[in-house]
C-alpha cells in the first residue's frame, strides 16, 4: 500500500475564494481518490481519478493528476462554509491493498 501526503496541513480562506490542496505519493498507482471528512464523522468520497486521466471535474471540484511528478491537486471553487472539513487523498495500486491516509488538509472557510 502507499500513503499520500497532503499539503498544506491547514488552510483558511474567505467564503467565495478558491481552495487548492495538494497530494504527493511515492510509487506508481492505479488510481487516486479524494475524500472529505467533517468533524468526527465518516469519510465522504469526492472523486476517483485513474492513472490514465489527467483531470476530472465534479461540480465545484477539479482534480488533477500528474503521474510523472507523482502528485495530485484538488481545487474547490467558490468555497462555502459547508466546505469546512478535513480533506484526504488516497493513492492506490488497487488489488487487496487497503488505503493508507496521511493527516489530511484541514480547510476552514471564514464567513
Amino acid at each position, binding site marked *: *500500500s502507499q500513503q499520500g501526503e497532503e499539503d498544506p496541513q491547514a488552510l483558511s480562506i474567505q467564503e467565495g475564494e478558491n481552495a487548492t490542496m495538494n497530494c504527493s505519493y511515492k510509487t506508481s498507482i*492505479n*488510481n487516486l*481518490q479524494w*475524500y472529505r471528512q467533517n468533524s*468526527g*464523522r*465518516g*469519510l*465522504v*468520497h469526492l472523486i*476517483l481519478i485513474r492513472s490514465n486521466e489527467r483531470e476530472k471535474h465534479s461540480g465545484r471540484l477539479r482534480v488533477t493528476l500528474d503521474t510523472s511528478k507523482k502528485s495530485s491537486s484538488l481545487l474547490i471553487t467558490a468555497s462555502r462554509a459547508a466546505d469546512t472539513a478535513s480533506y*484526504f487523498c*488516497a493513492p*492506490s495500486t*488497487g*488489488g*487487496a*491493498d*487497503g*488505503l*493508507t*491516509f*496521511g*493527516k*489530511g488538509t484541514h480547510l476552514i472557510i471564514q464567513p
Partner: protein
Amino acid sequence: DAGVTQSPTHLIKTRGQQVTLRCSPKSGHDTVSWYQQALGQGPQFIFQYYEEEERQRGNFPDRFSGHQFPNYSSELNVNALLLGDSALYLCASRRGWYNEQFFGPGTRLTVL
C-alpha cells in the same frame, strides 16, 4: 440506495472487555475494509475481506479479528481492549479491486 451502514454509533467499554462492531456494505459491493482513526490522525487500515476471507491486513495485533458473511456484511471484533483502542472505527466497501471505496459513518469506541 442505502450507503454503507455501521452499528452501533457509539460504544463505551472498559479495559479488558471485548467488542463487536458491525457493517453492512453498499448495495452491489462485495469487498469490505475496516479502518481505525485516532483523534487528529488519518484512518489506518486494519484489514480487508473478500469472499468471506481476510485478504490483506495492516499493522494491527491479533486482538483485532473480523468476519464476512455470505451477504457481504462484516464484523470487527476487538479482544482485551486497551485504552489506546479508543478511536473512530470506519467500515468501507467497494465492488471489485479498482473502484471507488465508500465509507460508513463510523462507530466511536471509548475505552475507560
